[in-house]
């Protein structure tokens, strides 16, 4: 099992955001985390790569095992952890540099390549992996900010892939995109699941229905139900899950 969360509690100030979360995120599958706004989905995601650390007044306890190693408490070097866990956020956020440098950035700071040629090759390979290479090949030195939103989001994915992560966290990665770009990115995730463990927060039930192997349903900071997509969608065990799926609240 790839990531295992045990008795995780997250407080921010006086708010108890995540309440005794227990979770198993299986390897090389897409796990979709669903639930109404403010239920703690994003917090959970940000805890997995410890990006939550930058939030003021945050307190974590419990265990999060990534490859058997507890990342809360001492754990591994935090930069190393984040390299291992890529993040694609809700709104694409290219760095203020060229398309090439955006993808190369992670490789450079992690000193992944000694030779420039290997770096160029890696950038090209990752741009191809997200289907962006054909669109930008003549202008990789131009600012990333000039790309369309959909292209920017794929660039951000390429940037994450470039540091060779094992896990990809996606926080509503398609919600800011137009339907066509959204579909492209969604298909990308499906094609990547053979190589990466993907954990996706999504707002659209239909998206989860289309691509999820596993589903986690959260409500008010608690995990209500989790399991294979088929089981959660077709035979939900909990009343709350049934209500949410039927659209009684959102």
């Amino acid at each position, binding site marked *: 099992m790839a990531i295992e969360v045990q008795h995780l509690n997250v407080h921010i100030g006086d708010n108890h955001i995540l309440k005794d979360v227990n979770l198993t995120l299986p390897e090389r599958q897409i796990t979709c985390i669903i639930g109404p706004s403010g239920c703690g989905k994003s917090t959970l995601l940000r805890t997995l790569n410890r990006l939550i650390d930058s939030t003021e007044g945050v307190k974590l306890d419990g265990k999060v095992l990534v490859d058997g190693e507890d990342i809360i408490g001492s754990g591994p070097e935090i930069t190393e952890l984040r390299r291992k866990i890529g993040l694609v956020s809700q709104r694409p956020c290219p760095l203020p540099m060229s398309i090439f440098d955006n993808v190369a*950035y992670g490789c450079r700071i992690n000193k992944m390549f000694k030779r420039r040629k290997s770096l160029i090759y890696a950038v090209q390979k990752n741009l191809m992996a997200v289907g962006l290479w054909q669109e930008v090949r003549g202008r990789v030195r131009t600012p990333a900010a000039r790309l369309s939103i959909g292209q920017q989001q794929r660039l951000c994915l390429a940037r994450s892939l470039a540091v060779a992560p094992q896990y990809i966290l996606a926080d509503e990665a398609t919600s800011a995109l137009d339907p066509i770009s959204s579909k492209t990115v969604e298909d990308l995730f499906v094609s990547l699941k053979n190589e990466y463990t993907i954990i996706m927060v999504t707002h659209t039930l239909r998206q989860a229905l289309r691509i999820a192997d596993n589903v986690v349903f959260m409500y008010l900071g608690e995990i209500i139900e989790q399991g294979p997509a088929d089981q959660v969608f077709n035979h939900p065990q909990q009343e709350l899950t049934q209500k949410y799926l039927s659209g009684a609240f959102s």
Partner: protein
Amino acid sequence: MKALMWVGMAVVFGFLISVIWTVFSRGAKAMSWEMVSQLPGGGFYIGKEGGFLNAIVGSLYIVGASTAIGLLISVPVVFYLNVYLKKDSKLAYVARLACDVLFGMPSIVYGAFGFTVMVFFGLRTSLLGGIIVITLLIIPIFIRSMDEATRNFPRDILDASFALGATKWETLKVVLRQIAPGIATATLLSVGRAIGDAASVMFTAGYTDSIPTSLSQPAATLPLAVFFQLSSPIPEVQDRAYAAALVLTIIVLILSIGGRFITHRFSKNKL
């Protein structure tokens, strides 16, 4: 309505061109290599030998030092306002208001204030006095213009960089890339104001015919060189005022055109 806009534009352009024309045509008459390379001689102020190198060097000293000190003080303030304080912080509101008030304060008030302080400490007009007052004058400009540039900084950039395994230091470099154009613009605005201001240095830096060799000696400045020479009844000396104004204009032009160029190169990748 359209005619009104045209007239407005014509007035602005006409004004700009006539200012430059006056300065150039009258300044060119008195302009020579001697003017910018020599100190005033004995009879300089009655139209004889010498130049105003003292004022050029004095201005550059004061502006250079106060820009450096101003940056050293303003950058941490801007970081504090935008990174550490919350968006709705009262302190930040008060600090911004204070800067805006100081921004609008006439420079003669700075001069008078600096003069009072110097009298209190028993200091005489000096390079140091000029540097301090000009620093005080430009700090609010620095802070407010950098603040505007930093305020709408997309915070997602921090997450994006951290999420790739970047350290704080590496992330700071990305942040600087994003706000560099803002800092450049702020510096230009401040330098432009600092170098052209006469009122604040009149009582604090004073005026002298020599180049200061220590901080405690008085220093001449270009705006005052213009001011004093223009007050002279002798036409040759008045023309030299325009020559000084010409040098001042050229310095400001170089700064703003050079600055635009740098800003443009930097901001190419800005989000």
